[in-house]
């Protein structure tokens, strides 16, 4: 639209410089105004709440004497709190069992769809993704009914073939049952991220290998998976964050399996219970803060680890 007036953009000499610097100043001002709204909400909804929680976490509220400063006592208390440590332990199991299963399925499905060898790939992609659009509340509610020991269809099927139905809501199986719900919810989301990354690999990279007679598995393992490493890392990091903040599932399962779900089933559920059931806001702030720090540390370590191994690989390849 403006191409016709382009030549006018080159006035000679000093005026040009002055105009350029004035326009540069205007641009800088505009840029600051563009980012301003974001950093206003960033500060008020993220930095200040975290700071305030940090502040609360070093106090203790007493019936007599009100607030008193106790330093890091709340943090020390968390480190020796069996409920909190139990929740963390459960999440570590979750991380070591559920996350690999979920991402393994997601990667397998993404590779299978990317190979283009199945009928109806586009429909399948959508169907796998649908659970992401279902709120965690509804997902848990549905699975809760499916698990139900009396009227749930799973139990009905077991009884129909004359077997004893397993109780999927007792304290032994509740962790596995929760893992299944989370897997159901997020396989599709991760699959789409990985699938999109696979689509962006230049075909030349593996067409030659295919001509040389490499099998699909070989191509997937040696060419495709290494090529989408950044996307895989992204799903790993998101899964770590997601695991440690599990809340919806235990909180809703608590209503139908009150004996299996303890107050500290997940660290986040524990923080909620401390704040709203025990009314100990200061300790809850410490637990929330600790949880956030833990997630940041684990994500950072995982990233650092992969960066290092990548560098090693690159060196070895040279």
């Amino acid at each position, binding site marked *: 639209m403006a191409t016709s007036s382009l030549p006018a*953009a080159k006035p000679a000499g000093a005026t040009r410089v002055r105009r350029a610097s004035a326009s540069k100043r205007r641009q800088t001002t505009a840029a600051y105004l563009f980012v301003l709204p974001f950093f206003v909400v960033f500060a008020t909804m993220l930095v200040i*709440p975290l700071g305030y929680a940090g502040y609360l976490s070093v106090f203790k509220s007493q019936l007599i004497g009100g607030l008193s400063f106790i330093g890091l006592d709340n943090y020390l208390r968390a480190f020796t709190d069996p409920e909190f440590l139990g929740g963390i332990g459960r999440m570590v199991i979750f991380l070591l069992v559920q996350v690999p299963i979920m991402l393994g399925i997601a990667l397998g499905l993404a590779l299978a769809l990317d190979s283009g*060898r199945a009928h109806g790939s586009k429909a399948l992609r959508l169907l796998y993704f649908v659970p992401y659009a279902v709120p965690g509340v509804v997902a848990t509610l549905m699975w809760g009914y499916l698990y139900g020991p009396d009227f749930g269809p799973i139990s009905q099927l077991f009884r129909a073939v004359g077997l004893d139905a397993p109780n999927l809501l007792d304290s032994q199986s509740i962790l596995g049952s929760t893992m299944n719900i989370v897997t159901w919810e997020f396989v599709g989301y991760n699959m789409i991220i990985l699938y999109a990354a696979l689509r962006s690999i230049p075909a030349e990279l593996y067409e030659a290998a295919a001509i040389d007679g490499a099998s699909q598995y070989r191509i997937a393992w040696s060419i495709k998976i290494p090529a989408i490493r950044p996307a895989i890392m992204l799903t790993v990091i998101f899964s770590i964050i997601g695991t440690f903040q599990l809340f919806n599932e235990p909180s809703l399962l608590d209503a139908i399996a009150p004996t299996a779900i303890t107050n500290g089933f997940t660290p986040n559920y524990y923080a909620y219970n401390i704040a709203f059931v025990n009314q100990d806001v200061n300790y809850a702030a410490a637990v929330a803060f600790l949880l956030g720090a833990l997630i940041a540390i684990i994500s950072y370590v995982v990233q650092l680890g992969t960066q290092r191994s990548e560098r090693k690989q690159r060196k070895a390849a040279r």
Partner: protein
Amino acid sequence: MTATITAPARENAAGHAKPSKRRQGKKRSLPLTILLWLCALYFLLPLFWLFIASTKDNSDLFSTFGLWFGNRFSLWDNVVSVFTARDGLYLRWALNTVLYAGVSAIGASLVATMAGYAFAKYTFPGSRVLFSLTLGAIMIPLTALALPTYLLFNAASLTNTPWAMILPSLVSPFGVFLMRVYAADAVPDSMIEAARVDGAGEFRIFWQVSFRLLGPGVVTVFLFALVATWNNYFLPLIMLNTSSLYPLTVGLAQQQAASAAGGGAQALFSTVITGSLISVVPLIIAFLFLQRYWETGLATGGVKE
């Protein structure tokens, strides 16, 4: 997260197959097809159950096989009772959900678009530091943040208002990141330069030139902010305590808890189930129709990170 930019991702990310990648004469595999459709059954099973259960009255719900229709088809009766129970409270929750999610998503995508655009198209002192700060914030778990936000809002007496739900949902660091990557390619520098030569101010350029080109990116950020708020349970649970302010997630959860506790109201079960079914329909439809956009969005994030 270091941004290792891999180049030509846009077209194929948007879901169109790349010409060079056209599968020439590749044979379809029947076993693979069967396996993949069996997997699809796993993802559909709970939703199929939800639909079947919504067609049953309360006695069929607990006496007939869960994965097939009951003796009576009472879907319509259930829908009526969802909307009439407790003076139409469900409709109120639905409207609240639309309001919270809609306003948050519009606000979050606008704020993220402006910031991402500025990071992509302007060089200004401090931009690197500010952008690193944004990237770091992606790591902060939103749910772990909800409790501190509640404590702050409680101190400011802002809890139990719609703002308590909307304001915290406006922060979308991932949206900023996504828009920066998107704007870098979608808006040519020459076009901005030409508009400047024409004498347009920076804001006019943004609204009248760049914003249109950013369309698909904006829709992506909007859609994901919408889902995040629509499906949020923790934040409204702690922030709101008047049932007329609840969104669907909290309302349904409380109804479910009430019926599980057997508060004398047996009819509640079928109402909760049908209410859940109705609540998931709008988002599923939105995802079906906007597939092109969210695939682009996830692709941009996943490929370019």
